[in-house]
Every structure is written in structure tokens, then in C-alpha cells.
């Protein structure tokens, strides 16, 4: 009886607001897959003048994975935002296409430079990781039916996050100046990618519980309400942890990401600007101190300010300079996929992948990519604004912000806007950890948007309401 009541109550709502829009999602997803397939075909033509031999197998595999993800959303989160999955699919697919393009190196007749850090199975491997990412996506949607499930494991997740963060410092391997990798057999895993998610959940749960206390004003100084000294504790702990990452894993990027995530979530929870200022000052101070005694950090500043000076262009700044020259080479319209020379940039397939896009798709293509990222962030923030549950709101805000910050830090780094720090570009960079974690992040944001857009259960106790329904 009550089921029938709910149903008739639902149909009474305005249709536009109460539709899941899964059909739109499927249409946009098909469009995203079509763009990826076209890009893949263009790459083959650019490289060898013919379609890539693996176009059909890779293309079908990718399309099937994305369709599976769509079906999972239909089943597990029917009210979720319809844009997020197509946007993520487009980024992921273009990443695979670029990795395929890079593993082939030069064009027919101009072999270019074979990228020693890549093998010809990298695109396939990235596709396999995409499958793992989609599995993670579905699992998160399946197990986190309500975000409050996560709140039960607040401290467990916090501990897991810290362990994952600290793990590389203990048993990690230093690759390219940063000790953020754990090598297991032939795989290397970046635990920090997962730590990011675990800690975001922990921060959100912790801050929701403590936000009233943290919001209490202490003293007013220069027009800013300073928090009470005893409440500074958690901020100092987060700051200390990020400094430790900086020192033991020599990784400014990750440290900036975690500290930024924490401070911004603190700000959203308490609405107190003072936290932002304190956080910013602490970070700048910490980085300055670190740069004075860690050569790796101070060197990053030097090559940022003077990439072309002296021997920098052929020495420490070689990678940055190659990336910039590649982007300059691409110019406004790019060389076209397969026609550029991105293979000169060391590690172009991971940290510097956006410079390869800039070179071959040009300024126009790179701006389109940035706008896709921007749109993804915007959909996340929209979910945060719309959802009622404070924990879900805080978590979505934090996750959307950390996605934006990650794109800013890496794209800003490789384009010379800010000092370069090696972190991955979400969805685009080669590497399984980043891809799987990014899909899990999207699953969380989609779950929260599903909660936000889901029609409220009908208050069946409402006398007036039930009367109206019975009358129908």
C-alpha cells in the first residue's frame, strides 16, 4: 500500500527535476567513445597512413567497459549526475590513445626517438587498468550505497590513509627524484593515490564531527578571527604529515595536494577564512624551510624561474624545456595526432602527458581538455552544493577540490606556471594506481550526486498528503 502511495506521489513532482537522465548519459557516453575512436583512427593515420591494427579490439574493449559502467550506474545510482561518466570516459579514452601514440614513437619514414621508458604493450596495459578502474568504480557504487557507510570507518580509513602515505618512505623506490613508488614484481604502485581518497573520507568525517568546536573564535587579530590555540592541533598534525612526505619522499606535489585538501575541507566545514590563511602560511613556510635543505626542492624553484638559463635547458630543466618547446611546436592548432615529436620529452607518457596533447592537438585541444577537467570539477562541486548530508557535502567538496588542485599542480607545473612537481594527471597519465583511484573518486562523486538528486522519500505519515492520494 505504502509503495503505491510513494509512486503516485513521485509522478506528481515536476518531471524535469525528477528524472535520472540515464538516457542522456548513454548518448553523451556514446559521443565520448566516438571521439576516442576517431582520435585513435587519426593517430593511426598520422603515424602510418592507415588505421591502427588494434583499433577494433581496443576500441570495442573500451566501448564495452564504458557501457558496463553505464549499466552499473543505471542499476546502482540511477539518480547520479549524467555528465560525470561521459567526461571521465572521454579523458580516460584520450589518455589511452595518447599512450598508444607515444609507444609507437615516430612516424613511418621518420622513426624519431623510441621512448626507452615505454613498451609497445603500454596502451593495452592502460586498457587493462581501465578495466580495473571500472571494477573499482562499480564496487564503490555497490558498497557505498549511502555515504554514511563510510562514516562508520572514520578512524580506520584515517589510519589506512596514513599508512599508505608513509609506506613508500619505508619500503619505497625512488623514481625520478621522488620516493613515491612501491615496486611489486613488474608493477609499481603509487599508494598515495589511494591514500588521497582514504584521507579525504577521514577528514570529512572528522571535521563534520568537530566542526562546531573548530568554528569557535578565539582572538580577533587584524580583522581576522583566529581559532583557539588548542584547536590548531589537527591542522598542525596534517601540516606535519605533509612536511614528512616532503622530506622523506621528496615530493612537493603530493604534499601540497594533501595539505591543500585538508585546509580546504577545514574551511568548508568551519567557514572561517582564518584557517585558509593559516594553512597557506604554514605551507609556504614549510616549503621554504624544506627548499633550504633539500636540494631537490630548491632545484625545482631554480628551473621554474630560469628554465633556459645557462645549462638548465640541457640539464636539470631538460624535461620542462622539452615539454614547453613541444607545446610551442604545436602552436594554436597542433601538429595533428601522430605528426608531432612528443617523444623528445622524457617521461612524456606520465607527468608530461598534457604537453604531448598540447603539441599534437594544439592550444585548442589542450584548452578543450582543461575545460573537460573544469566541467568534471564543476559537476562535483554542484553535487556538494546540492546534497543535504553534511558529511557527503564536505566529502564531495573536498574530492572535487582535490581533483582541481591536482590538475592545477601538474598542468601548471609542466606549462611553467608554477614549480614543477611530479604528480599524475588524473585519467590521462600512464599508470594504474592513478587511473583506478580516479575512477573510485568519480564513483564517490556520482554516489553523492545520486544522493543529492534522488527524490526525497514521501512522508507517508503526512495526513494531508495521504488524503490527497487516496482521493485520486
Amino acid at each position, binding site marked *: 500500500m505504502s509503495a503505491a502511495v510513494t509512486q503516485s506521489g513521485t509522478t506528481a513532482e515536476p518531471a524535469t527535476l525528477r528524472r535520472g537522465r540515464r538516457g542522456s548519459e548513454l548518448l553523451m557516453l556514446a559521443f565520448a567513445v566516438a571521439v576516442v575512436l576517431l582520435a585513435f583512427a587519426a593517430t593511426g593515420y598520422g603515424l602510418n597512413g592507415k588505421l591502427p591494427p588494434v583499433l577494433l579490439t581496443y576500441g570495442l574493449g573500451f566501448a564495452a567497459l564504458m557501457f558496463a559502467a553505464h549499466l552499473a550506474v543505471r542499476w546502482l545510482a540511477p539518480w547520479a549526475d549524467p555528465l560525470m561518466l561521459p567526461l571521465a570516459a572521454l579523458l580516460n579514452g584520450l589518455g589511452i590513445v595518447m599512450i598508444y601514440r607515444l609507444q609507437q614513437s615516430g612516424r613511418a619514414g621518420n622513426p624519431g626517438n623510441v621512448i626507452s621508458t615505454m613498451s609497445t604493450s603500454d596502451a593495452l596495459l592502460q586498457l587493462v587498468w581501465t578495466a580495473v578502474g571500472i571494477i573499482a568504480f562499480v564496487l564503490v557504487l555497490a558498497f557505498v550505497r549511502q555515504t554514511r557507510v563510510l562514516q562508520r570507518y572514520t578512524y580506520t580509513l584515517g589510519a589506512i590513509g596514513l599508512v599508505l602515505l608513509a609506506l613508500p618512505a619505508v619500503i619505497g623506490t625512488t623514481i625520478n627524484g621522488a620516493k613515491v613508488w612501491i615496486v611489486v614484481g613488474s608493477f609499481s604502485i603509487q599508494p598515495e593515490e589511494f591514500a588521497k581518497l582514504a584521507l579525504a573520507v577521514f577528514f570529512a568525517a572528522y571535521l563534520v564531527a568537530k566542526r562546531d568546536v573548530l568554528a569557535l573564535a578565539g582572538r580577533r587579530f587584524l580583522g581576522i578571527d583566529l581559532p583557539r590555540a588548542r584547536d590548531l592541533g589537527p591542522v598542525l598534525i596534517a601540516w606535519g604529515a605533509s612536511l614528512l612526505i616532503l622530506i622523506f619522499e621528496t615530493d612537493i606535489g603530493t604534499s601540497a595536494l594533501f595539505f591543500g585538501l585538508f585546509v580546504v575541507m577545514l574551511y568548508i566545514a568551519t567557514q572561517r577564512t582564518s584557517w585558509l590563511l593559516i594553512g597557506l602560511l604554514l605551507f609556504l613556510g614549510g616549503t621554504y624551510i624544506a627548499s633550504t635543505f633539500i636540494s631537490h626542492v630548491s632545484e625545482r624553484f631554480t628551473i621554474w624561474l630560469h628554465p*633556459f638559463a645557462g645549462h638548465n635547458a640541457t640539464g636539470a630543466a631538460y624535461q620542462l624545456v622539452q615539454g614547453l*618547446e613541444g607545446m*610551442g611546436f604545436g602552436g594554436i592548432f597542433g601538429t595533428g595526432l601522430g605528426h608531432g615529436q612528443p617523444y623528445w620529452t622524457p617521461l612524456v607518457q606520465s607527468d608530461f602527458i598534457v604537453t604531448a596533447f598540447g603539441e599534437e592537438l594544439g*592550444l585548442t585541444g589542450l584548452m578543450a581538455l582543461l575545460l573537460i577537467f573544469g566541467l568534471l570539477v*564543476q559537476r562535483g562541486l554542484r553535487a556538494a552544493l546540492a546534497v543535504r548530508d553534511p558529511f557527503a557535502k*564536505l566529502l564531495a*567538496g573536498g574530492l572535487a577540490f582535490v581533483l582541481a588542485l591536482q590538475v592545477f599542480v601538474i598542468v*601548471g607545473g609542466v606549462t611553467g606556471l608554477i614549480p614543477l612537481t611530479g604528480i599524475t594527471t588524473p585519467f590521462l597519465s600512464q599508470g594504474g594506481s592513478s587511473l583506478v583511484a580516479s575512477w573510485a573518486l568519480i564513483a564517490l562523486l556520482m554516489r553523492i550526486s545520486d544522493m543529492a538528486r534522488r527524490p526525497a522519500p514521501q512522508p507517508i505519515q503526512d495526513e494531508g498528503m495521504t488524503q490527497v492520494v487516496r482521493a485520486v
Partner: protein
Amino acid sequence: MNRALMRISLACLAMFVLLLINVNYVQAFEAGRLSAQSGNIRTFDQQFQYQRGSIIAAGGGKSVTIAESRLVKGTNDYKRDYPFGAIFAPVTGYDSVYSDTGIEAAEDKNLSGTAPALAVHNLIGVLTGKPKQGATVYLTISAAAQEAAYSALASFGKPAAAVAINPSTGAILAMASYPTFNPNEFTTLNGAKLDQIDNRYLADPSQPLLNRAINATYPPGSTFKIVTSSTALSTGKVASPQTPVPAPASFQLTGSSSVLINNDGEICGDGTPPLIQAFYLSCNTAFAKLGQKVGPADLHKYASAYGMNNPNLTIPLSVSPSNYPLLTDPAQVELSAIGQFNDTVTPLQEAMFAATIANHGTLMKPYLVTEVTAPDLTAIQRTQPSPLSQPVSSPVAAGIGSMMLQVTQNPAGTGYATAGPPAVGSLQIAAKTGTAQNGINNTNLNDAVFTCYAPYSNPQIAVAVIVQGGGYGAAAAAPIAVRIIQAYLGKT
């Protein structure tokens, strides 16, 4: 919490806006500078991947391709080819994997297709899938005149240069230098081999890489008497070519113990010959005294009007300045008036003297590039002839022209035997010879200088030749100039 979330949204927006601004800066505004960055591996690699534009000698009514890029068999790489080897080398320069010279350097943006004017053409090429191609550069050079110049210089065998100009436009018809280099040697794609070739040329004491036509200077000798006469006639210090001027057999330089004599100590006419006779006999004493009479300031002014003392001339290759310093010492002024002391000229400057007289006193800006066309044959750049200056009035130019005519037509004229009727028959060449002493205490062999234009009644070509250590201008340089004129006018 929504208020804070809105602010964070703004912060995210700001981050993306910053990224977008920065990538625009890098890829739209900095792109050119990044491509020009030394050691840019992509720019370096790119040069073999597209067809560089051709260079065509289009002067004299015939088009001859003198530099083009051809696909190397079995590869996608293009290689530069100069079908005529050394003949056009001072004009084209070379295009090697490391550097460019000559027109290859001066017109590199057009030839490589990176010039802003080609951006739209390139974009259409990208959209239609056509491979990038450079623009074609058409030169004013006449292949016939250039070939004659080179073979005449080479057969004489001494370091020398010749320049020919169309006097009414300033179009450079020939620009030859000897000894020179074979630009095909620089087109190798093998860096080590290129270094070897480059070092060999750089170590060669005969300086084959030096473009003597525009980048070497020599004393003008008696050809400078054109400028001295211009100054005297223009300022009214000498009324007309028929005005008698003092020309003693010897003349002690003012305030100096040095005594100046005419060639072989001859007397000049009756001692006070008309200016025209002093000119075609090339009397040193007459012009030294004339220099004293008109004074250093006016000499400097007229020399500058003829194009000397200009460090910024480009054709578009940059031209070394020809110098006539402003002097104060009277003895130096007297020597400078006959093209000695510190006067120096490029062969191009020599040609500009004659071209000015041929063009009624107006000096046209010399230029090499007549047109640049995009791969679809539309012209993206076309040179309009423009005057550089007017050193002398039309009547003065006519007077000096009549004096130059007598150099070859009067049996006593210095150029009669080699550029007059015995040598060229009815073709009238107006000329001035020069035999310039040089070296410390004039110990070096004299440089032979000859500047002229022809035909006298309807000037079509002005030619200057300087042969280093060639001896008498009339004997060494004039026959070379005559061959260039005959080749260009089609009267061989």
C-alpha cells in the same frame, strides 16, 4: 557550508582560468620564441620534414631555379640542392642543418614557411591534409649576368667581386664574389661531416665564405672622383665640366712633405684642363686640389648621400658600411678626394655611384628579392622600387655622365682601350677607372676598380668590379665589367 563551497568553487574556477591563460601564453604568444630557442630539437628535426621553398633568379626576363629542396630517395627527408654550385653562392648562401647564410638566412621565415603572412596558408594546408611547404623567393638576379660575372672573375683568378644593378629600380642583377664556396657541400645531413667541411672553409686563407660584393671593402681609388666632381659641380665651386681646373704635374699636400703626382708623373693637359679632361685622364693633382677647394664637410655630405657611411643598409642581406670619414687634416682631405687615405667602399657601393649617375642623380635602394609567393602561387610580398636618396640634381648627373662617357670614348681616356670602341664597338659605356694603392706605405699590389653603366643613352645596367691586387682598373676590372654588360644586354 554552501557559502564556503561557493568560494571554493570560485577558487577552482580561478585555477582553471590561470591554466588557460598560461597555455595561451605558451602556445600562442611564446611559440615563436620557443621555436627559435637554440637547441630546439623539434625545430632542428622539422627542417628535413617539409619542402623548403625554392630560390629563383628571375631577373633579365628568364627564371632559373638556383636553390630547391628535393626528397631523398627512400626516405621522407628533404635535402637542399643548388644546381649551379658556386656561381650563385654569394647570393643564395647555404642552408645547412645548423645555420643559414645569404638569402637562405635573410628569407628563412618565408622559405621555411614560418612567416606570419603564411599562417593562413599553413592552416588551410593543415585542414586539407597537405604537407607544409615553404614559400618561393624570386630574386632580381639575372642568371646570364651572374654567370658571366662569375666566369669572368674565376678566369681572372684573383680575389674579386662584381655587382650589377638596374639603375632605374635598384634591382641587383648580379652579385658575384671570387673565390667562393660550393653551397652543395653544406647540405649534408651528417653533422660530423658538416663540421669538417665548415672548418675547412673557415681555415682557408682565401676566405671563400666572405661575400666580397657586400661584406668586403676596398679603397675606391680614382672612382671616388665621381663624388668629388659631384660635390664641386653641385656646390657651384666648379661651374660646369668645361670649367678649367688647376692640374699641376706635382702637388705638395698641404702641411705635409708628401708630394702627389699623376699617373707615371705625367702632366695633365695644359696644366689647367677643363674638369672633363682632368676626369677622363684621371689627374690626381686636379682632384686633390678640388678636394681642398670644396672642403671636407661637403665631401662627407655628398659621399653619405651616395650611400656611404650607412651601417644599416640591407638588400635584405646586410651590407658592410662604406666609409668616408669626416676629416680635418688638409693633406688627408686632399688624399681622400682621390679615393685614397681611409676611404673604403664595397663593390656594391661602387655600383651605386654609377647607378646614381645613370638614373639622373637619384639613387634607388638596391634590393635582391622581387617577390615571395605562397605554395598556392599567391604573392605574399612584392618589392616596390624606392629611392634611397638624391645625391645630385639631374643636370649635374648629366654633366658627370658626359664626363664618364669620355673615359671610354676619348682615345686618351683611361678606359678607351678596354671599354671603348676598340673593345665594344658601338656600345657606349660610361665609366670611371680606379687603381687604388693600399697597404702600409702602399706596398700591396694595387686594387683594380671599375664602375660604369650602359648603354649611355638609355642606361639599363650599372656594373662595378673590384679586383684585389689586380693592378690597373682599366686593364683588370674593365674587361670583366664589359663581359657582364654584354651578357646582360645580349650582345656577346
